[in-house]
């Protein structure tokens, strides 16, 4: 473990601090300083990284003074969640709990209350850690990402946002402003599962599932897997197998083989070896899909 072998008492690097009051101001700063600038949202990743000199930005752009970025509201297209919404707010929001309970479940599984009071949903995504719990949940929910830059606002599916480990498709001067999480189909069941070294730890593997039943057979089906490849992925092959079938143990087991097959081993995998991830991704996906099926049955 490399944890805490460095001095984490102070932030040992010097930087210029900016706290823009509007999106346009923030974007202008990001455009001007490019690679030299880092966005400060919750700070739960950035500050420890700066302490350990993993990143040494010359400019910090604190976006917390931009009020519209912290919203959580229902729109006709789905629930709109600002990038600055705290993980704790996502966990406790009555709208999210009612419409997309799995997202609330995933948010509540992250770190501790203190971490969730600081950390934001946008930060969890923009750090592009393969194990980010919000990323896996938003992938399964097929969320749309909203980005703002000097050319104005644009949006695209979250799957296109991840470019790989710690890499997202933000251009110079662009800022993630939030997400639209479409309402799952009527009667949908959903579940989020993860395993880490401790309940406090980041995920070694996480899985999110959303599905509906039609006449006892799986109709809509979406499964996402995190921490097993450079970015969270949708397990399309498993989804295809499950669609149109009754969720018997045999069918589920067959589909789960494809989940395990998605594990892309990395050279240095500190937390767990590939075989552990294969087996636990299979088991967690089984649990998640099983729980989602039960929920969907209750909704019928």
């Amino acid at each position, binding site marked *: 473990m490399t944890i*805490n072998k460095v001095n984490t008492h102070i932030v040992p690097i010097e930087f210029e*601090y900016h706290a823009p009051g509007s999106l346009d101001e923030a974007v202008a700063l990001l455009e001007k300083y490019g690679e030299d600038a880092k966005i400060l949202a919750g700070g*739960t990743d950035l500050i*420890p990284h700066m302490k350990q000199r993993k990143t040494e930005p010359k400019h*910090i752009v604190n976006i*917390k003074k931009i009020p519209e970025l912290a919203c959580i509201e229902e729109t006709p297209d789905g629930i709109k969640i600002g990038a600055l919404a705290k993980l704790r707010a996502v966990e406790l929001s009555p709208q999210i709990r009612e419409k997309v309970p799995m997202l609330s479940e995933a948010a509540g599984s992250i770190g501790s209350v*203190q*971490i969730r*009071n600081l950390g934001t949903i946008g930060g969890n995504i923009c750090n592009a850690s393969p194990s980010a719990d919000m990323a896996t949940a938003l992938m399964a929910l097929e969320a749309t990402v909203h980005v703002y830059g000097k050319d104005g606002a644009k949006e695209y599916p979250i799957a296109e946002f991840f470019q790989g480990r710690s890499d997202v498709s933000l251009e110079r001067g662009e800022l993630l402003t939030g997400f639209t999480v479409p309402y799952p189909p009527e009667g949908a069941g959903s579940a989020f599962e993860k395993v880490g070294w401790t309940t406090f730890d980041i995920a070694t593997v996480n899985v999110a599932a959303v599905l509906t039943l039609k006449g006892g057979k799986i109709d809509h089906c979406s499964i996402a897997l995190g921490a097993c490849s450079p970015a969270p992925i949708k397990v399309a092959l498993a989804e295809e197998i499950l669609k149109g079938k009754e969720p018997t143990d045999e069918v589920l087991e067959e589909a789960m083989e494809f989940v395990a097959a998605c594990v892309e081993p990395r050279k240095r995998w500190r937390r767990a070896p590939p075989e552990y991830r294969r087996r636990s991704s299979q088991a967690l996906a089984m649990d998640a899909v099983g729980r989602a099926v039960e929920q969907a049955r209750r909704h019928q």
Partner: protein
Amino acid sequence: MEIEITINGRKRRFDVEPNKLLLNLVRDELYLTGTKYGCGIGECGACTVHLDGEAVLACMVLAVDADGRSVTTIEGVADGDKLDPVQEAYIEEGAIQCGFCTPGFIMSTKALLKENSDPSEGEIREYLKGNYCRCTGYVNIIKAVQSAAKKMQG
């Protein structure tokens, strides 16, 4: 940078470098050393303070980020010499041994009881999982939280 933070109910002005952490501001400039530096990476909860009423980790917040906001540390919990019911409960239940983690635990407990006046054991364990105690163990701490909840309900 000039900033203004309300600390334990008193407005204070500081001139700080942007890389100064809230934890170090509170400890080194104000000598409010109840808030502890434990791990520095958000794992142990020893530096828990309330920022605008929410429990957060002072080792992960820049002082400049707290500009215009209000901070409560363990020193702001008691009313003069009269201890807060949570502090009393921790003492009575023997939930303190070396005391290093206690300020963090008390700040988290205060936040918990504000949200949920009658938490179950499971809820207490879940809420306090961001605070580590390495000596006395958690059984007495949970008893203390339950006893504080009773006290506060009257």
